[in-house]
């Protein structure tokens, strides 16, 4: 890595490089999960790491998510910095108790005397034609819980840097990886100075309306902005990057200019992160908003079978429809 600083990598590979770097830099960094070793994970995100760092640092675990997170907590108490892989979004729930009642609360329980630097990687979201439980977006269920931080990169460079930052953080971080973007390539400058982990980024400037999204939906919003531009509408696109905390200041700044906001995520709209953004931005920007904050997301339904996912997931038309509705106010 020393020589070449800018690489063009698929998002999954950027995470792989970031994990490698973290393990090189800090012997306390460990990887744990199902099939993360020889197989390199079902998405190959940990590919090659066991070979190079050994079975002591890249640990294939028994098939038990509560056990994985619970033992990772114990390792963190011993001074390690475990990076845990949950194989798919829908399989995090057996570990939910350990995450919510232990990982999230232990630092506070100890009045700050112990730290829990655990990263939980979750490949999440749909769009890859998978079977049940392999396409969910459960981020709101974690963001609601104090003590956790939740982030999601939308591109390879962020994936690299946000993983570096998540591992260095002394707080538990749930790292949501947009699985359908794993193969999307982007430039990664490993010598760059990254922006703070929980800061949003304006990925396209615009004047008529703000689209806010994170993870897999950022690309969609950029496409929507491009399409709208052709029709003469100027959309600003914010990549929130972090769902806990949410960079409300950045959203507010944008909305004070554009006066309209549409939030897009794959997760169900009802009690999704968009509800919080809508509520809080409406409070902050009450006299600026020309239209209510609109939300585009999943329905109040189990994630549907693959042949229906295109109807379920926010797509270009649904985003543009929401934009039109917001502009019609």
């Amino acid at each position: 890595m020393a020589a070449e600083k800018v690489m063009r990598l698929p998002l999954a590979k950027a995470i792989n490089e970031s994990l490698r770097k973290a393990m090189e830099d800090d012997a306390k960094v460990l990887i744990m999960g199902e099939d993360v070793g020889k197989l390199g994970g079902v998405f190959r995100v940990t590919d090659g790491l066991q070979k190079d760092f050994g079975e002591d640092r890249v640990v294939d675990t028994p098939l038990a998510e509560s056990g994985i997170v619970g033992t990772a907590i114990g390792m963190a108490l011993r001074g390690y910095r475990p990076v845990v892989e949950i194989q798919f979004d829908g399989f995090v729930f057996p570990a939910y108790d350990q995450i919510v009642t232990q990982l999230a609360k232990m630092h506070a329980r100890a009045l700050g005397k112990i730290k829990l630097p655990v990263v939980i990687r979750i490949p999440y979201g749909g769009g890859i034609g998978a079977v049940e439980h392999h396409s969910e977006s459960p981020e709101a269920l974690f963001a609601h819980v104090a003590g956790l931080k939740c982030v999601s990169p939308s591109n390879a460079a962020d994936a690299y840097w946000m993983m570096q930052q998540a591992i260095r953080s002394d707080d538990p971080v749930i790292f949501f990886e947009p699985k359908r973007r794993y193969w999307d390539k982007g430039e990664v400058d490993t010598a760059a100075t990254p922006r703070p982990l929980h800061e949003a980024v304006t990925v396209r400037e615009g004047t008529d309306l703000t689209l806010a999204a994170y993870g897999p939906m950022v690309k969609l919003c950029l496409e929507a902005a491009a399409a709208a531009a052709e029709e003469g509408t100027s959309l600003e696109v914010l990549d929130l990057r972090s769902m806990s905390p949410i960079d409300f200041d950045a959203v507010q700044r944008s909305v004070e200019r554009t006066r309209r906001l549409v939030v897009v995520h794959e997760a169900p709209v009802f009690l999704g992160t968009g509800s919080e953004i809508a509520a809080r931005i409406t409070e902050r920007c009450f006299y600026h908003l020309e239209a209510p904050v609109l939300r585009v997301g999943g329905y109040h339904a189990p994630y549907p079978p693959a042949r229906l996912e295109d109807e379920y997931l926010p797509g270009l038309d649904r985003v543009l429809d929401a934009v039109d509705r917001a502009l019609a106010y």
Partner: protein
Amino acid sequence: MTVESTAGRRPRRAPAKRTGARKPKQPVQPAAPDQPELVQLLTPEGKRVEHPEYSVDLTPDELRGLYRDMVLTRRFDAEATSLQRQGELGLWASLLGQEAAQIGSGRALRDDDYVFPTYREHGVAWCRGVDPTNLLGMFRGVNNGGWDPNSNNFHLYTIVIGSQALHATGYAMGVAKDGADSAVIAYFGDGASSQGDVAEAFTFSAVYNAPVVFFCQNNQWAISEPTEKQTRVPLYRRAAGYGFPGVRVDGNDVLACLAVTRAALERARSGQGPTLVEAFTYRMGAHTTSDDPTRYRRDAEREEWEAKDPIQRLRAHLEAESVIDADFLAALEEESETLGRRVRESIRLMPDPPPTAIFENIYADGHALVDEERAQFAAYQASFAEEGH
């Protein structure tokens, strides 16, 4: 189940430093399978042997039936694998190699017994009379479970590992409350044995003496992890610590699987509570069609197990005993072809569900938000029609 990526090659690097981790000095008990513990009635060569505790006495018709079940199940499975390659299915989880475990246990069941499968029990489904094409729906992506569990007393496939062990236990508690003498069987894998839910199912079933059989197909692998990553002693021994018997059966021996499962079901029916059966078998194929086992296991291992093939073994026995002949085999081959054709044809006829199916069957008694979203969706769809979009 997993869906996996194609991933690029990693550049070579210097070997990393190791931490000075202490190695376990002496593992207490060997994790290696103890062959003598295995209940076997038919050797890999097809020789019929006796066991002091377990026996079967089958008519020629029954024996031919078992053979037919295994052959047709394997054929169906192969067909599904190739339909996946052709893009008709998104994924397939093959049972190749596990036919004896599934047919042996499946044929031990009575109609009134109830089955809670994982996602790989195509052979058990076959024994229950579930139309094989119905199994394909979830792998094609048209539904998440395409049959009525109560029509054949065969619950839907369950993907979240281990969950169904508790459903089976609860169902069995209900059977006991009803005063019925049916039994319940829960299937799961060696990997699943590590899940807390499976342990809790052991606890509940023991405490309530529920009429349930836990049928663990130890196919040696949980995706890329060998059984040693789940346990350091044979899995069937887990049961004793919960207060019920565990037994390891040769999972490639259909007669032994039948005998052992029958006995366990009989215990359940007669009020003696749960049993754990560990069927020692092998996953001959990939974990699913998305998996690439060459990354983590040796060919030689697969070859060893090929010599223990469940179908060849029964065939050798039935030929030696003249229970089957060339005519039988030819007829069966034709039946296989017909089945294959039927599966291929019906998959192509399998319609995609209408988009509005997203909003159906979420609640039995309705839900205002679902109604609202359904209506919005309809209006949105209609707007395209109007615009001629």
